Every structure is written in structure tokens, then in C-alpha cells.
């Protein structure tokens, strides 16, 4: 992937560039926002890693400058920030960043982080969705009908759980928040929705600690993630519920679990 890195700290630039190149990426590094914009205008990039706080033009300014222009390609723009609280992450995501990486980050896990946050946008179309569908089907022993039933159950159950979570936050019932968020976490984990799972985990912990002050800040991104997951699952169910759709070769392969003999 072609990556543009903008960070005013020289040491961070050197270390990050070194690691990204070792991971096989092509990297251009600049020390400020103006240079980032100039590089971006010169040639296309798959990913922009922007330090939030740079003298002159900040990462947020660069993001807005790029997003305000109509581009044929939409690069993934990731904020790199020393402010690591949930509020900061939420604030930056609201600004329009696709993902947020907190400092200090582990260089050896940079690749995994980039894969995780970037897969959907930089993989060839459909690859990631297909891989996720394959994994999902594998996790239920290759049983397409079972997976479709689970999706229907989730689509029926999730809005109720979300309503319970919202009601528990509104009425400050910590115990209810803990149990509803925990139950929803179980469902979203099955479907591999890690961000939603994380938000549910945080809400459940706040509930267990009887400290709901931050709960509304977590509820907002959770709603977004659940809406995304519901849309994806509806799309998957729509594609695979049609007569004859069960024969998609990449989704229908037998798994080790399927090959087991019944007892």
C-alpha cells in the first residue's frame, strides 16, 4: 500500500517509516500538514496517517481540506493522537477520520492495526466482505441455513437490546445497563463486529461500576456500529436467501465441523 505519514516528531517519523517499509509498504513522510496536502495533490495514496497536533496545519485541517474536494479515489485517513480517551476517539471519528490510532503505538503491531482498520477500503472490492462471510460460515460449521436463522434472530433482538441499553442509561439503572450491554456483546462478537463488541464491553463495565456518566458518549458510536452491522447482515441475508443462492462456492465449502459423524 502507498502510505502518507505526517508527523512533526522526527523520531516517530523515522521509526514508523522504517517499520512500515519493513512490512512492505511504500511510504512518504512529511513533517507538517501543508507538505502532506502538497504530496497528496502530487500522487495518490491508499492511507494517510496524520498526527492530530502539528504546528500550522493540524491533522484535522488536512482531513477537512482533502475531504472537501471531490476525489475519484477516497483514501483511508487515520488520526494518530496522544489523546487516548474514549471522548477523544469519538471526537476524531466525528471529525471524519476513518480510524484513530493512539500514541504510543506498538510498531510491531502497526501492520495488524492497519489491516484491521483499512481492510474494507483498500482491499480489492468484496474481498474483505467475502473473507468475513467465509469465517462466519466456518464458525457455524458451514451451515448456511443456521447462519441465516441466527441473522434473523439478531436483527429481531438487537433493536430490543439497544432500546434496553438506552432506557437503562436514561433512567440511570446501572445493573440493567450491565446485563443488556453484556448480552448484546455476545451477539455482536459472534458476527465479528469488534468495534461494537468493544463499546458493549465498555458500557457493561460502566454498568458494573455504577458509573454511567460516560455512557452516552459510548452509546453514540455503538449505535453507528450496530446500524452498520445490521445493514451488512441484511445484505448478506438478502444475497443468500434467494432460491439457489446457497450454492456460492466460496461460502458453501465443507468444514471440518461439517465432516464430523453424528453421534
Amino acid at each position: 500500500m502507498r502510505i502518507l505519514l505526517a508527523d512533526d516528531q522526527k523520531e516517530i517519523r523515522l521509526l514508523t517509516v522504517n517499520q512500515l517499509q519493513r512490512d512492505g509498504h511504500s511510504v512518504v513522510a512529511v513533517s507538517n500538514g501543508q507538505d502532506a496536502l502538497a504530496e497528496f495533490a502530487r500522487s495518490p495514496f491508499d492511507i494517510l496517517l496524520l498526527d492530530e497536533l502539528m504546528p500550522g496545519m493540524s491533522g484535522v485541517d488536512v482531513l477537512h481540506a482533502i475531504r472537501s474536494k471531490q476525489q475519484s479515489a477516497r483514501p483511508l485517513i487515520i488520526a494518530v493522537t496522544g489523546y487516548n480517551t474514549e471522548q477523544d476517539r469519538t471526537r476524531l471519528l466525528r471529525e471524519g477520520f476513518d480510524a484513530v490510532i493512539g500514541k504510543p503505538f506498538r510498531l510491531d503491531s502497526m501492520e495488524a492495526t492497519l489491516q484491521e482498520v483499512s481492510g474494507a477500503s483498500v482491499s480489492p472490492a468484496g474481498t474483505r466482505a467475502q473473507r468475513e462471510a467465509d469465517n462466519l460460515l466456518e464458525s457455524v460449521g458451514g451451515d448456511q441455513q443456521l447462519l441465516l436463522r441466527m441473522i434473523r434472530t439478531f436483527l429481531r433482538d438487537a433493536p430490543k437490546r439497544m432500546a434496553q441499553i438506552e432506557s437503562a442509561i436514561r433512567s440511570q439503572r446501572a445493573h440493567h445497563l450491565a446485563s443488556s450491554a453484556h448480552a448484546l456483546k455476545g451477539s455482536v462478537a459472534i458476527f465479528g463486529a469488534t468495534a461494537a463488541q468493544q463499546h458493549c464491553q465498555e458500557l457493561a463495565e460502566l454498568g458494573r461500576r455504577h458509573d454511567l456518566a460516560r455512557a452516552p458518549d459510548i452509546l453514540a458510536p455503538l449505535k453507528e456500529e450496530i446500524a452498520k452491522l445490521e445493514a451488512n447482515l441484511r445484505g448478506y441475508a438478502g444475497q443468500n436467501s434467494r432460491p439457489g443462492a446457497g450454492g456460492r462456492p466460496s461460502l458453501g465449502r465443507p468444514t471440518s465441523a461439517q465432516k464430523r459423524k453424528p453421534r
Partner: protein
Amino acid sequence: MPAILVTDDDATTRQMVRGVLKKAGYDVSVAADGFGALRAIQKKRFDLVLLDIWMPRMTGLGLLGHLHGEKNIPKIVVMTSDQTSDTLLDALRGRVYQYLKKPLDATTLLTTVENALSTSPEVPAIEVVSANAQWVELMVPCERSVVSRVQSFLMHMDVDLPDDIIEKVGYAFRELLNNAIEWGGRLDPNLKVRVSYIKTKKMLMYRVDDPGPASESRT
């Protein structure tokens, strides 16, 4: 056909586990919390209960407490994403056979269920001598089935190490414990092996003291 009770407050999880197990030929019932499970166990004899921990009304651990007075207690496998040592050790004290980490997948689920059903219905008692997040000490009887059981608990306790290191340590631990139980304890369930688990920020240490004549320690 072995009868299995699946207990989880999440409908999607119940449906998944039930679907996978039914397809594999098991007789499957479901319950949405500890109360429902208790009622089901009082009505019907189950070979195995797959039990979530955090549920409203009655938690999985609450159910384990209630089961103490019951006859014909089924084998229990806990399924949870909770990796805190307190929860895991409470489950171990409650004679839980094994631990399944969520999110579940069909292959691990079926392997664990087959393994749990293939061993004797009696779950050997594991004594928890000392238990805190940094130091756990267990006395385990010299029976082969306890090896994977103890490993499934200790390997899932929260530790800040890469997965591959945890896996290697787990493999070494399994070998140590197998040796102690087979050679030191001669597979005599009346003899006990002492297992110590010590965790620091960047270190994980197991110590296995077998009951053999030389009373060997392996670390």
C-alpha cells in the same frame, strides 16, 4: 443420544450452539438464565450443561451454587468471554469441567463437547489453595482428564503476552503436568499434584510439584 442443556441469555448464541449441536446429533434443550437451567435440570437428566456466566436473574456461578444440593449433577462447561481470574477460579471451585472462550466456533465447541462427554461423569475435585490474580495454587488429583481441564482455565487467565508465547508456555505446561501425573503420581487419583501459577507484568511461571517418591518440582 447425549442430552445437552445450553444456557445463555443471548438468543443468537443459544441458536448457534443449539443448531451446531443438533446437527451433530445431540438432544439439545435451551434455557435463557440460571433459573431456567435449574428448572430444566430438576425435570430432566442432562449429560452436559453449557453455561454462560453473566446472565440476569441467576448467573452461571449462582446456578453452580444451587446445584450443590442436587443429585445427578450434569457435567458443566462454562462458555464466557470473561477472563478474570476470580470468575475462572470460582468456576473451577464449582466443579466446572472445562472452559470455552467466546465467541464460539463450531469446531472448538464440538471438540470440547465430545471431550467432556467421553470422560467419566464424575468430575475430579480440584482444590484451589490460593487464588489471586498474580498467584494461583491448585491441588489436582493424578488423573489424565484434569490436564486439559486445568490448562483450559489457566491458559485463559488475562495475561499481557503475545498469543504465540502463551501457546508455547501452554504446551510446556501440559507436558510438565502430564509427566507429574503419570510418572510422579502413577495416575493414582488419591495422590495430588501441586500446580502454582505466578504472573507478573511480563512473566508467566508455572511450577508443578509431583507427589512421587523424589517429589520432583518442574518449572
